[in-house]
């Protein structure tokens, strides 16, 4: 469970080379997070679901939920040597709650050698420890702390998604308070069957709860948000195109209500993005 749900964080590690959702804006460079990021990284809750051995269960973000619903990539081979660089984006400040990994792989030709054999089960990485040590400066983060990357030549097509019981998952997620997860499943069900009463009901319920949650975090809509990150530094933040668009509307004069009005996005999404920007300390209020 995500730390958002109120449960204590569990020290679980992902299976090596398992399903990894790569957010679009992830830096490919090695990133050393600040203290806040490490703290947030500690909150990571990546658990192995014993009943679904191939899936990473991470419910705090849509990306992570997407990861849950697709089959994993096969185990990756070990790529020794200096060509391999990787970082744990989960340690980055912005989306520290996302149990996502990122690899920066030098895919240059290695002389036409045969792809290395896939390892059996490499030792699982310990993210918390590595993050803490990275911040402490005690040791550099190196490849031994992370799951090995997959070389290009070893990639194989992803198998078909496993059978998912949407109804069950949706109800489960609502029961544990993961409204955004439940909403995503409800939306997907409605795509397939627009008249699905149960999905409609869950969708409306989840939307209402989420709007309430975001409203509580954002406070009065009359407040005027301002950007506190210099323009030239924005590109190093872990945000996406939609968040950048939202930032485009923050001019130090417009109220939250105006910004929500002009964003052209659905209210829920606009509020979610603003809440995240607030949490990431990209914006604050006057």
């Amino acid at each position: 469970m995500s730390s958002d749900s109120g449960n204590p964080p569990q020290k679980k590690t992902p299976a090596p080379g398992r399903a990894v959702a790569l957010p679009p804006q992830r830096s490919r460079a090695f990133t050393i997070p600040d203290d806040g990021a490490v703290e947030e990284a500690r909150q990571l809750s990546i658990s192995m679901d014993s009943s679904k051995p191939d899936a990473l269960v991470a419910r705090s973000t849509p990306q992570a939920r997407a990861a849950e619903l697709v089959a994993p990539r096969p185990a990756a081979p070990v790529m020794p040597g200096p060509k391999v660089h990787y970082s744990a984006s989960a340690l980055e400040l912005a989306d520290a709650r996302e149990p996502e990994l990122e690899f920066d792989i030098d895919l240059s030709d290695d002389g036409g050698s045969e792809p290395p054999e896939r390892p059996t089960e490499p030792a699982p990485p310990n993210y918390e420890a590595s993050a803490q040590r990275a911040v402490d400066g005690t040791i550099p983060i190196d490849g031994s702390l992370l799951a090995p990357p997959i070389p290009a030549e070893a990639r194989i097509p992803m198998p078909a998604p496993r059978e998912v019981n949407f109804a069950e998952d949706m109800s489960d997620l609502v029961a544990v308070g993961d409204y955004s997860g439940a909403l995503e499943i409800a939306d997907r069900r409605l795509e397939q069957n627009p008249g699905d009463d149960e999905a409609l009901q869950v969708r409306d319920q989840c939307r209402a709860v989420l709007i309430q949650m975001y409203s509580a975090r954002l406070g009065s809509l009359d407040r005027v948000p301002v950007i506190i990150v210099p323009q030239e530094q924005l590109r190093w933040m872990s945000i996406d195109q939609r968040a950048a668009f939202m930032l485009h509307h923050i001019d130090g004069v417009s109220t939250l209500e105006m910004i929500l009005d002009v964003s052209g996005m659905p209210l829920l999404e606009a509020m979610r993005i603003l809440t995240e920007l607030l949490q990431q300390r990209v914006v604050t209020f006057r």
Partner: protein
Amino acid sequence: MEKVIGIDLGTTNSCVAIVENGSPVVIPNRGGYKTTPSMVAVTEAGKRIVGHIAKRQAITNAENTVYAAKRLIGRKWNSPQVKNSVATSSYRIVEGPHADVRIVLREKEYSVPEISAMILQEMKVIAEDYLGEPVKKAVVTVPAYFNDNQRQATKDAGEIAGLDVIRIINEPTAAALAYGFGRNLEKTVAVYDFGGGTFDISILEIAQNGVFKVIATAGDTFLGGEDIDARVIDWLVQGFKTEHNVDLRQDRMALQRLKDAAEKAKCELSAVRETEINLPFIISSGRNEALHLQRTLDRKTLEELSADLVERTVEICKQTLEDAKLEKKDVEEVILVGGITRMPKIQEAVAQFFDREPGKGVHPDEVVALGASIQGAALVDDKQEMILLDVTPHALGIMTFGNFFEELIPANTTVPTHRTKVFTTSRDNQTAVKILVMQGDSEKAEENELLGEFILTGLRRAPKGTVEVEVTFEINADGIVSVRAKDLETSLEQSIQVTATSGLTRDEISSMIQNAQGQLLDRRASEEFETHRQEAEKLVAEIERLFPQVEQIVATSDFGRDAIDKARSIVDRAKQAIARKDLDAVKEHVEGLSRTQRMFKGVVART
């Protein structure tokens, strides 16, 4: 003396001004800007938004954002300009019940004067906020080429907005008024007005007795500063495509940011030689990789991108001077109007064409509104006298056999005026003639605007060409056109008075006025609630901050505990009133909260 505001109701931006202590001043809006985009939108939540806020979502909510409504105002559904707008606008334009034009926003139809009224109402509110009192009268400017229907539609828009439009004046006239204000000029001036969406050139004579006469006017209603923005956007999109093979035009959010950045860069390049366009996270690539746009645009590149547009304006100037039978040397002063005229290349082109430096004594964004406010003040001040002498923007005449347009009053004729011509019958034994009164500049009747029609009957049966009918056109000082047809043999006559119409009935206008007033009342109520809510919330926060200290101080006293309970009750009730948006209750609780806060402060201060 009653306050009269001057409003420049522009195609892309509007501006409001007033004369204060004898000097005209532009009134800034709440954001501090002196111009307000002439844009209206309805959001997904059904909220009506006007001005900058509407502009900022113009691309992402393109179907429900109206821009350049001025191009449609007072036009008939079947006019070529409307057809052009239907083909090029992102919002839906449909035919109205009186062959007029309607705009559909979120499934609701609005007439064009209604849309313009929303902009005028915004300008009215800006002025009222500034003055702290209601404003009722206004002088509104229109392009010199506007016909009577367009002028009437603009007046109707003012009425719907709750304004008594005491005079409609031509934009170049207003610019010249502001330019000549207090200078007692006697000159022939050219007003080069390069606006956001339109270009106009007008030649005026300013007489020493305060008479302003428009000698000639011409323009292009689809040429403006936004075309230059579009060139910058093209340049950015093309560069990005070359670099990343991604077409930014496919993404509305990216396009909205590009549009804003292009406009900003264009404005900046009037002051600096180069500017950086930095749009991080503009789009994601197909591989879900965040892409950033960062490019430097220099003034030279901008000039190259817009060179042909500037050249087009110069060509129109040339044609206008020829039409007016004037030489360049006859123009003694050139007045620049429109923000884009700050662009050095434009100033250079104008200077080169007219062989003189354009005047820089007036602010190009504000000059028209300032002129309107000067005229407004003159109209209500008996001491001031200023005569505005305007001309007919288009020729007036009748349709003759073969669908030709026979001109009686040429374009640019000073009003009041009257002209007469004699016509004959076109068929043998013709006993009646139909007089179709038209306005326009084309020889083909169907390309001109039909103003009205009437039939003269009782003609003598005779071979064609023998019965003579005298047709007289008369335009009075108020711009009302009268047409009379007289059978010269029998002296039988028939006449018509052409009354301009916006395409709306009186009932429709009344209903729209009520609707607009309702909207304004809602807005004012919401603003009043906001003011009191903020005050109440501030007091609640202060009281809650003091609670622990006061509780500690009065802990031993029963009387004190009672006071604490009462204070809690007031705070709770105030919070509830805020939550249910009950203005009266919030107002009422503000008093109680103030008393409580004073009491708490007193208790804390005494210890």
